[in-house]
């Protein structure tokens, strides 16, 4: 048995485990569709990677086989944090009552096609997650501090985080950074 065969077996084993785990999570209750849909997309990608390895030509270059085995390990490593976040978004500790108002603001800002996931964080800091390459660009992932779940000010904070999403999805940074920098320099020079 050559190393790539063992590698391939391990990769398939890992992919089957992750797919099974995600299937069981998807079978649970989800407070809103966007989170469940994101998890479903991730599940489909793992399944697709499994199929790719299973359909590999037995005579394929060992380097190709080895790369196909590295890909799912990479995907699992990359996705586990997001899977955890998406799962946490369904936890009853979240302030679900703020989801719809934030979603409405998101629809006004990004259009009806956007997908919003609001989850809890144990960092004492709200944040907008960098969008993983595994999810489409219309996803917005907002993390809010779990310790402040009862604080009404989480609502405006979420609005602030949506602002980061605008910053990320438009060319505002390029348009305004130079102007702001020049204005600051001019202000100092004028004094």
């Amino acid at each position, binding site marked *: 048995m050559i190393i790539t065969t063992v590698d391939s077996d391990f990769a398939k084993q890992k992919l089957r485990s992750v797919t099974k785990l995600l299937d069981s999570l998807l079978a649970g209750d989800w407070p809103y569709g966007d989170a469940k849909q994101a998890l479903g997309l991730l599940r489909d990608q793992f399944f697709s990677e499994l199929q790719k390895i299973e359909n590999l030509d037995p005579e*394929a270059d060992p380097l*190709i086989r080895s*790369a196909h085995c*590295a*890909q799912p390990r*990479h995907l699992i490593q990359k996705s586990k944090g997001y899977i955890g976040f998406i799962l946490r978004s369904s936890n009853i500790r979240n302030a679900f009552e703020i989801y719809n108002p934030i979603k409405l603001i998101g629809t006004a800002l990004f259009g009806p096609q956007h997908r919003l996931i609001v989850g809890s964080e144990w960092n004492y800091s709200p944040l*907008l997650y960098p*969008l*993983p390459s595994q999810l489409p660009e219309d996803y917005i992932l907002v993390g809010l501090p779990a310790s402040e779940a009862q604080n009404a000010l989480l609502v405006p904070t979420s609005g602030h*985080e949506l602002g980061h999403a605008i910053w990320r999805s438009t060319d505002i940074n390029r348009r305004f950074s130079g102007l702001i920098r020049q204005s600051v320099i001019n202000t100092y020079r004028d004094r």
Partner: protein
Amino acid sequence: MVPTVAHAASERLALVALSAATELDKMSRGKPASNAPLQEFREVLSDFPGWLESIHTGTLALDPISSEMFTAAVTSVTKKRMGDLADLSKALKAIIEELHSISNEDQAHELGMIKTFCLAIHHFVMKTSSQTGLIEQGVFYNDYNYS
């Protein structure tokens, strides 16, 4: 936010590069292969942020990680050290031209060259963002700074 965008683009490029390499491997062994992954690789490579417009002028504009990635990929094909961005632009231009003209009838050498280029891109992205985790951590820390 630029590192996030560049990183996501690299991930996508790595994925399609592996699919393209898989089909090129089949072609080089005379097996039936699909051209679709190769076409997708061409398209994703063309859309890679901030470089296509500069490659023809010899003034390649890439962020440091992407520059390292393409240098590693080109070096794996040419086996020559890239002295500067002009060298890298020239070598990349030659590989991209070869990539656009490739067909099932090509010799194993040409197919193997592009396959090596594709695998090197995939390998670089795996190495930098999976094993060390440094890139991903950097992106997260970057966003915490903006929160």
